Structure formats: C-alpha cells, structure tokens
C-alpha cells in the first residue's frame, strides 16, 4: 500500500514506523526536517519537507498514487484542509484526518471525511474506566511498538 502521512509528530512518526515495518511504501511530510528525527533509524521510507496544504508538496510526496492519506499535523484546520485537497483534488480513496475539536470532527465526518477525534476517544475511555474499572474497545498497541522496536 502507498501511504502518505502529513505531520511527523508523535502519532505521525509512530504510524510511519509501524506501517513501514509492515512492508508498506510510506512517505511522511513535515514543515520541519528536525521532526524526522522521531522516525528513528529503522524507518527507510521517504521524508518530504514542506507545507501539507500545498498541492506541489503533496504531489512530490506521491499523493497521486496514494492508497491512503492520513493528516495528523498539529493544526486541526491544516488537517481538515489537507484531507479535503487529498479527496477533492487528488481523489485519494481513503482519507483520514485527526481533529482535536469534537465539533469540527463531527461536522466534517458528516461531510464525508473519516475523522478521528482523539479528544473524545481518550476522554470517553477514561470516563468508562473510572466508572466500571474496565477498558473499552481500544486495544493498547504500546507493547507491539516497544517489543518490536519499530
């Protein structure tokens, strides 16, 4: 699978390492080249320095052949706009945007984007854990990440 990831923070870099280890073709975009340090030494995929809402940068990252585009940069609005460019300009089939603001996450989901609101996911899991003492559906992947040292 060809994977393009916008944002090389904690989530972007971890996702890149995991999917690279699984054998996918991965490209990561970030505004700052220092962010790519988070990718570690085993990741050999592509790194693109640039603005993820610039069509030329996305093209350089191979978005025209991407099977999936994931926007997990720091800004909700940047993720929203990049996801809409991926979908409407480049016709990427699977587009996922991480959006911290629950309301924006909900509205853009209604517009047809796949949105991931980690704010409500984490809060809900903690609330349920506090109430019933058990974890919800979320699986914790940290063991996989640590033992396989991706």
């Amino acid at each position, binding site marked *: 699978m060809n994977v393009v990831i916008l944002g090389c923070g904690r989530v972007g870099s971890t996702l890149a390492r995991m999917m690279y280890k699984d054998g996918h073709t991965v490209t990561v975009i970030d505004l700052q080249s220092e962010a790519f340090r988070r990718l570690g030494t085993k990741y050999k995929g592509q790194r693109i320095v640039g603005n993820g*809402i*610039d*069509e030329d940068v996305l093209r350089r990252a191979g978005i025209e052949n991407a099977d999936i585009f994931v926007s997990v940069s720091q*800004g*909700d*609005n*940047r993720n*929203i*706009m*990049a996801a*809409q*460019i991926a979908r*409407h*300009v480049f016709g990427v089939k699977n587009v996922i945007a991480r959006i911290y*603001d629950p*309301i*924006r996450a909900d*509205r853009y989901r*209604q*517009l047809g984007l796949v949105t991931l609101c980690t704010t409500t996911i984490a809060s809900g899991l903690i609330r349920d854990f506090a109430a019933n003492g058990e974890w919800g559906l979320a699986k914790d992947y940290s063991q996989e990440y640590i033992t396989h040292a991706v």
Partner: protein
Amino acid sequence: MYVIIVGGGNIGYYLAKQLVAAKHEVLLLEKDRLRYRTVSEELGEVVMQGDGCEVAQQTEAGFGRADAVVAVTGSDDDNLVVCQMAKLEHNVPRTISRVNDPRNEKLFHKLGVDATVSSTKIIYNLIEQEVGGGEVIPLAALNRGNIEIVEVEIGARSPVLDGDIKSLQLPSEALIISVIRGGHAILPTGETTFAVGDSVVILVNADREHELRHVFSEGV
C-alpha cells in the same frame, strides 16, 4: 448589514474601519490577545477576542444573524474552516475568504466558499498587464457555477485587429458581451470589428479562459 470579520491583521483592521464608517454593523474577531488589545484600543467594542473556527465562539459572536462572514487571516486553512463552519453551523448567506495561494481559489469555491480574493493573483495580473497587451484580466467570478467575466485590451499588435467578431475562433462557452470603445460600451454584433484601445468584456467558463489567451495573445 451585519458583517463579521475574522482575523485582525492589517486587512481585517482597515476593512472593519471602512465598514464602520459606512454605517454597517461590524464585528472583528481576533484570536491573539496582544493583537486584540492593540486593535480594540482604536476600534473599541467592535472587536472581540476569540477563535473564529470554534463553534461556541461563532455562536457568541452572532454568526447566526450575520449577512456576511469575511475570513482574512494569514492562513488559507484557517480561512477555509471559518467559512465552511459558518455555512454548516449558521447558514451564513455569504462567506468571503482571503486566499494566499491562488490555486486555492478553485478549491475553496468547490468546498462551498462563496467568494475568494487573492492578492497574489491580483498583483500578478497587474504585472502581466504592464508587460504586454492581449492579457486576459479576470474582472469577476459569478457566484454559482464556474463562470468568469474577463476583460481583454486590444493593443496595436493584436492578432484580432480589424477583424470582426464572427470570424474569431472563440472557444465554446465564451461569449463577448461588450466592447468598450472611447469610454462607451457597445453591444456588439457579429459584424463589430476591433480597434486599438478597445476593451473586450467576455463571459467565459473559467476552465476555458486559457483558450481565450491564445486567441488574443500578442506574443510579447
């Protein structure tokens, strides 16, 4: 008219001042506390501190009864989301966005923004105008659909000089609506010929605008 401006930079500030002077009801939303203080010292209660993308603050600012929302921050992504949320949440009848990357104008229209302004494109067009005749200058975009009104000035080296309209190889979906000669607008017929100094006003599908350039280009 109630106009809400998002972004208190120079554009937002001067726009708010002009609209207030023209007796419109205006609200200027600025996210940054420092900038908010500076602007509100001069404009007073017209300025509110807040994030124009947050629904709660949009509601507080009265987006629900706004006639127009204008997003003029320095970031295209913020401007897009301000306009989209204004439409989705509050059904604002007219949203206008500043666009830094001119290529985003098309995208923004597709994503529901009613009007866009790109200073980059305007300045570029002005420079092109200086360089040579025969340039196709966009005058306005029609609200719905992909139609633009453009103007072409006929210079001394124009390939269409002394020819008439019916012999022009116009692209389909292009219509000459007026020829402006010596300050007077002429409603042209097929027999109208072009003269040096004419401005030709054309209604054209935006995707075919480049074909017009071939017709009128003077080859600098």
